[in-house]
């Protein structure tokens, strides 16, 4: 069948299946497989489908997914993060906005030890959402904060996306990592500002809603996932007396928290282990911390392992779906067709870059990040080279767009991860997550186009 027609059919089908609520991995599998059949017939399937699930999973680099989730589970089950959140709450003297800032900041810190935005989002979702909810954040906002904080792992080095880009374009991965440092921090800062504004807006809405019960009812009917007790919680949280934690425990917790960070960062940057291996070492340290805090028992293992297995399975089955869908996209030559449409504007590099960003943004909306890198770079690289755009800069730029793509529907792995662990619907999280995504897209990408030094200055001055 004509490939343009097939592309059209599959895009329509993909959107319909997504909207009707089919599991996201099934949507990708169904669209990918049916697309392949329409393009090439059944004959193409055995070679592409049979081995894909195994090939996708059997990867050393992807051990980061179960192991970083396991680390988060151990830390979570040991009560460590709850205690830290409690401490910050105390210090902030009821300024609940600080908790959101802290979540995003912890997201950034976790980003420096994790290469996968999805895994970090899942972990962060589990630890942070209950605390955020207790301190007056709506479910969708809490979910979006966790997803945004977790997505930072995609850009703050180490980053799987940058590694893949480095391989595809033969750019030194170490340099890419250094180059991504400033834009990564910048993205985090932008997320923090967006979060502060959204939180204030929510608070205002609430106080109006408290006066006007009709509008409050409307809001909760629009958003069935929002806990009806939100308003009450928000109003009473400042007086809400949590169980008092002894000073000794707070000191222990702080020391252990600092130690975990020190082991992981110190280990990676001193060369004791690679960022991938940090997942395993981090889990072991988390386990030891839980032992010291006296939280290890059968239930501890049961819940941490079940959760780890669930999240890993979720991420991997979506990756398998994305992989097979990616094969269809690649065989349909869709990326190349999109690129051909750019030709008329080749003499104005800024326009081309904006067009490429938009195309990538759209692709990252639909397809898993690694798959986008793998299928678009071979097509984009010649154009980038011809435009004389710095390849390192472009890699960092792509990683920023990819990170943002983790927050956008219909395929936003960070949001799905958070939705999966928190039980909050992905639809409402996407609504808020999109705001984070769009603001970061405009500010960070805009600044990077105007001041390319944001990405190139550090690597150039260091070597």
């Amino acid at each position: 069948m004509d490939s343009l027609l097939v592309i059209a059919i599959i895009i329509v089908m993909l959107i319909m299946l997504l909207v009707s609520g089919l599991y996201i991995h099934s949507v990708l599998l169904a669209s990918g497989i049916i697309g392949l059949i329409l393009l090439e017939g059944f004959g193409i399937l055995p070679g592409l489908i049979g081995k894909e699930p195994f090939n996708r999973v059997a990867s050393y680099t992807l051990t980061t997914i179960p192991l970083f989730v396991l680390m988060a589970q151990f830390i979570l089950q040991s009560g460590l993060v709850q205690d830290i959140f409690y401490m910050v709450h105390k210090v902030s003297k009821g300024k609940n906005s600080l908790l959101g800032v802290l979540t995003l900041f912890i997201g950034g810190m976790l980003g420096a030890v994790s290469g996968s935005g999805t895994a970090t989002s899942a972990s962060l979702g589990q630890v942070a959402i209950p605390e955020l909810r207790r301190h007056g954040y709506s479910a969708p906002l809490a979910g979006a904060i966790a997803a945004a904080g977790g997505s930072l792992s995609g850009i703050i080095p180490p980053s799987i996306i940058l590694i893949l880009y480095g391989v595809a374009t033969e750019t030194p991965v170490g340099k890419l990592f250094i180059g991504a440092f400033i834009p990564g921090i910048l993205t985090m800062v932008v997320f923090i500002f967006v979060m502060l504004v959204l939180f204030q807006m929510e608070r205002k809405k609430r106080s109006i809603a408290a006066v006007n019960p009709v509008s409050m009812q409307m809001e909760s009917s629009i958003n069935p996932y929002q806990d009806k007790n939100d308003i009450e919680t928000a109003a009473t949280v400042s007086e809400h007396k949590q169980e008092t934690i002894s000073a000794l425990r707070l000191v222990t917790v702080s020391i252990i928290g600092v130690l975990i960070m020190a082991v992981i960062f110190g280990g990676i940057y001193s060369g004791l282990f690679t960022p991938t291996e940090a997942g395993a070492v981090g889990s072991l340290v988390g386990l030891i911390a839980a032992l010291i805090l006296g939280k290890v028992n059968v239930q501890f293992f049961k819940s941490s392992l079940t959760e780890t297995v669930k999240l890993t399975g979720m991420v991997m089955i979506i990756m398998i779906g994305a992989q097979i869908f990616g094969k269809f996209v690649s065989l349909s030559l869709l990326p190349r067709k999109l690129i051909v449409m750019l030709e008329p504007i080749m003499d104005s590099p800024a326009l081309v870059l904006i067009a490429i960003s938009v195309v990538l943004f759209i692709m990252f909306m639909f397809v898993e990040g690694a798959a986008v890198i793998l299928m678009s770079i071979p097509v984009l690289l010649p154009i980038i080279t011809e435009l004389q755009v710095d390849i390192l800069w472009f890699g960092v730029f792509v990683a920023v767009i990819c990170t943002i793509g983790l927050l956008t529907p219909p395929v936003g792995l960070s949001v799905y991860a958070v939705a999966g662990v928190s039980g909050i619907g992905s639809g409402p999280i996407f609504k808020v997550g999109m705001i984070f995504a769009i603001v970061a897209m405009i500010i960070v990408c805009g600044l990077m186009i105007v001041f390319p030094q944001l990405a190139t200055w550090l690597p150039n001055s260091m070597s």
Partner: protein
Amino acid sequence: EDTDKAYGESETIKLRAATGLSTQHAWWANSMVPWMERVEELTDGQVVFESFTGGELVSVPDEADAVLDGTVDVALVLPIYEPDQYPMAEVTMLPLSHSDTFIASNAWKKLLESDVELADGKTYSEMQFSGFKVFPVSTTQEYSISTTGKEFITANDIKGTSLRTPSRIHEVYAGEAGINSVTMPAVEMYDALSRGTFDGSFYSIADWSGYGFQDLFKYTITGVNFGHFNAFIGMSKEKWESLPEHVQQAMTQANEEIFTPGAQEWVDRSEKAITANKEIGGQFVDFSTLNADVQEHFHKGMEGTWKNYAELLESNGLPGDKLVVLWRDILIEEGGEVPESIMNLE
């Protein structure tokens, strides 16, 4: 598309070509792409290639399977990555005392085209690549040992050094020479090496630029050789036989034409990498200037590796002894050298 159907004399032939390597890899950019372009030229555009790179359709090392099961029509096949399926392909990775890209490339081509019967009246290609139409391409430049600073002053410095081993033969060699082998994906290497997670790697200088190693390695031993990685452009026999004769001729002619320039590219890349590496203070030490005990230690490892590899094949019912002798003889014919004791193998 029906693979079994023979093409008409003037009908346009669209072939799907793939590699898991990046577009800039020398094998793709300087062997396969020129080959495809030349075939399109020679057939006046009757043959058209549609290519998929960087693993977007087929990843390393699945190219061979993809060609055989019809997912793609032609691909760069890297048989060394599948020692379970092509155990005799690793023979070019055996360590040598002297050779270069041209010597090894010509020897690899000769081995593929050799009519010496190794077992059951079958030649090398018939035993290993019977399902393929093979178009030989150059091997890589020789593998060296490079470290991020560790130097080999005495034989004791070699023992316990941690090096990344890119193939099974290197693992065997590392075992023989008392070197700790580290396995990790090439993409993680830069990061791990720059932080001192391990000491260095077996690697070919020409391939450094792919991962930025010219900015990283400080000490490289040259003038000794830890094998050559090999590859070929592969097509299934079925597909090959379905092509009109003049197209087959064009493909063969194009293959002859691109073979040597493809090998030259490795040499050019190596020179560039050496210049860049010297600029940041990289040292290149010739093997013959090393201490005698260091030289001897490396040589001993070589002999052990040849014997070990032959035995390994024999124990799997393959003609290991005959194969290593055939490879040695072809290599010597092309101007290569091996340690004395390997010359004595019969």
